[in-house]
Every structure is written in C-alpha cells, then in structure tokens.
C-alpha cells in the first residue's frame, strides 16, 4: 500500500484540519469530490462536522454514497471522523430520523441528558476525555495500536453511535457514567467519535496508524 489517503470532500466539514494532520505526517492527501477519486482511493477518510441530515444530503447530491460503498467492497481502509463516523451507521435520530450510509449496523442516538446518577449534565459533550478499552476488544493491529489506555482525546458532539454488535466497539469514553462509543471497527471500516486531528500527539498517532494499515 502507498502512503496516500483520499479525504472525501462533500462540501461541509473541517477538511483543512484533517488534511493538515495527514500532511504533517508526511503522507499524500487527495481531496476527493468525484466518484472516481473515491472508488480508486487507497484509503479513505470521511470527515464531518455539522448536522447529520445535511451531510447525508450533500453526500447524496454529489453522488458520493455509492462510490464509498464501492470502495469498501475492496477491503481497503476507511476511517470516519466524528460526524463521518456517525454517517457510517444505518440511521440517525438527530433532528428527526435519517438514513445513513449503512456500512455498520446500529443507530446514532442522542447522548442521554443525564449522567448515570440521574442528574442533568451538559450537552454537547465537549472536551477531552479518556479512552477506555471496550470489553473483549483488542487494540493490536487496529488504529489504536500503541495508544495507551486512558489517553485523552478531544470530543465535541451531542449524538453518539450505538452499534448493534457490541464487538464493533474498540474503545469508549465515559461521560458522567454514560458510556459513549469512541472508536468503532467492522473489518476495514473504522470510525472515531473524537477528532484525532485535534487531539494533540496521541491523536496524531492514531492517524499515523491508519496511514500504515
């Protein structure tokens, strides 16, 4: 595999930071806004900030959903970041009910507005939080290879992914006792709820691992 990554450019999202992080790691970045760019990519990065429905509409209007599905069939690595990870799931309950790309079974739901003790807590979940290994998860060979457990990553979100198959969750974080899926993986399809490109050195290590897959 080459050290090349294609970033899906569907009009929204903070592409600059993702690109900056990849370039900092001395890999080649291609901004992919066309079907061919994506189908032919060596590895794919799906970024995203913003609202789920709008992002999916943008993907649809630009005809980029089919190419992403096509790309994944080849078994090459795909990493979704934040909203990009959420879009990999079947559906989201953010502002209604919306269909996702559907590569990973499960839904995107609101973070409970109380902690596990029932008291109200602040939403969105903004800030640095620690990665905890999900039950039975093995980080070796994954994008979390070499990452210390309890490393802090930067999260900023109001919704969270809830995979139907718990084994798709590699890491979670805890927000006042509520478990939030932080890293998911189903075969060659991966996602980070936090922003590795905004999580200082430990975050960059994750991007680096992805680039070496």
């Amino acid at each position, binding site marked *: 595999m080459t050290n090349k990554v294609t970033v899906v450019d569907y009009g*929204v999202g903070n592409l*600059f930071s993702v690109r*900056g992080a990849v370039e900092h790691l001395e890999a080649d970045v291609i901004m992919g806004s066309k079907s061919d760019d994506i189908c032919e990519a060596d590895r794919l990065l799906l970024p995203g900030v913003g609202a789920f429905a*709008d992002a999916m509409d943008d993907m649809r209007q630009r005809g980029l959903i089919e190419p992403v599905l096509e790309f994944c069939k080849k078994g090459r690595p795909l990493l979704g970041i934040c909203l990009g990870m959420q879009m990999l799931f079947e559906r989201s309950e953010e502002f209604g009910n919306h269909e996702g790309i559907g590569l990973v079974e499960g839904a995107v739901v609101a973070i409970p507005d109380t902690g596990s003790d029932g008291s109200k*807590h602040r939403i969105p979940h*903004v*800030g*640095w*939080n620690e990665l905890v290994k999900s039950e039975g998860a093995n980080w070796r060979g994954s994008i979390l290879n070499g990452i210390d457990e309890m490393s*802090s990553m930067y999260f900023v979100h109001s919704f969270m992914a809830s995979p139907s198959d718990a084994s798709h969750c590699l890491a979670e974080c805890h927000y006042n006792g509520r478990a939030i899926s932080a890293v998911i993986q189903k075969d060659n399809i991966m996602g980070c709820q936090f922003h590795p490109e905004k999580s200082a050195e430990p975050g960059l290590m994750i991007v680096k691992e992805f680039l070496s897959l």
Partner: protein
Amino acid sequence: MAKIRIIARLDVKGTNLIKGVHLEGLRVVGNPNQHAIQYYQEGADEILYMDVVASLYGRNNLTEVVRKTAKDLFIPITVGGGIRTVEDATEILRSGADKVAVNTAATKRPELLSELSRRLGSQCIVLSIEAKKIRDGKWEAYTDNGRERTGLDVIEWAVRGSELGAGEILLTSIDKEGTNKNFDLQLIKAVTENVDIPVIASGGMGSTDHFVDAVNESDATAVAMADVIHFNKISLNEIRNAALDAGINVRKL
C-alpha cells in the same frame, strides 16, 4: 466527565496579537501564530482567536491567521469576530477553525444561532457574551468589545441562546477582563446554574488560585486566559499542575 479545559485566548487586531484592559486600551503583544504554537506546545487544550475589530468593519480578518496556525497545531481552534451569516461561519471553519463564536450578529438577530446550529451543528457554535455588571446579581450583555450596550439581560440571553442552538457559551466579564483580579465568580455561577451547555469562564485570571476558584465555585467547564500567559506571568504548565494538585480533572500530559 469531560476534563476541564485550559483555553489560551488570543485577541487579534489586524495581524497582531493584542491585549487590553476591560477590553479597551489595546496594546500589541506579538505575533498570534507564534503565540498559538507556543501554547499548543506547552499543552493548551484549545485556542481561542477573537478578531476584536471585526464587528466594526463587518468582516472577520482571521482566516489567514487561522489557516497558518492550523497547519502546525493539532488542538481545537475557536474563532470569533464579525460572523454574521452561515456563509461567514462556513468560511472560517473551512480555513481550519473547529468552532465559531458569535456575539454582535446574534444579539441583533437571535435566529442566526438556530441557522448556524441547524446547518453546522450546535457543537461548533459558541455564543460569546460580554457581560457588564449593573448591580448585584444583574449583568447586561454588551457587544463590540464592551462598547455597545444591547439591553439584554445576560442570564436571559444565555438561556435563550442555548435554546436557540448555541453549543457553548464564552462568558467574558468586561469588569474583570485584563485586571488579573479574579473572575466574576458570581456571574459565572449565575450563568452555569441556568444553562445546560458548557460555559467557558473568561476575564480576570491572575493566578492559579483563580483558575481553581472558577472551576470549584462556579461549575465552569473551561477557563480562558490571556495576559497571564501572554506576558509570561504564569505558564500553562503551572496552571495545569496547580489544577491537578487541587484535584481538578484536567488533561494529564
């Protein structure tokens, strides 16, 4: 819980990092990029850029500064000043910012907050409130660096802003800003008690004790600081260590 964030605030005018007292009497501190990178290397959890003259000229001049900074800095960047439309915000985000802070335009047209959060997600919309104390327990929201009154009650405006879709509140005390005489704890407390979104305390930090007070006594989820770090009065490391010693959950480096 999420960790308490230590935020380096950089007020920018043109291409210069500046600093004033009570948001006025601005003086040049240096190059914003150099300072931002230095704070990143010293372990800041987040960078906050404010274009302090943007509202005056009706546009934000920070896209170039942000673009430059974002290349070498891998922590979140919030940018405020002169953002009036979804397009303005989108441009700032595309230049490398993660969140936008709005003040003036939102006070004039509160629906802007809904439009921004609907389109960009509330998690990247910060409502910036400049608060000036009127009497005990009452503050008025100002704009344009404490120059213009809005007639809005700070607590009511904070609540309304969070209902309209702001994902965070940057709460700056005009009275305390640049004084190093501690935060307006009463103000921060009043706002954090009334909204469910994260609140960043800003204005007045002069010592590590002030940081500890802001977190322990007011439930702020983040603390912004400017001249204590710009003028090397305290290092970010000292602040982090003092917070850890006080049992505050900040990021361990």
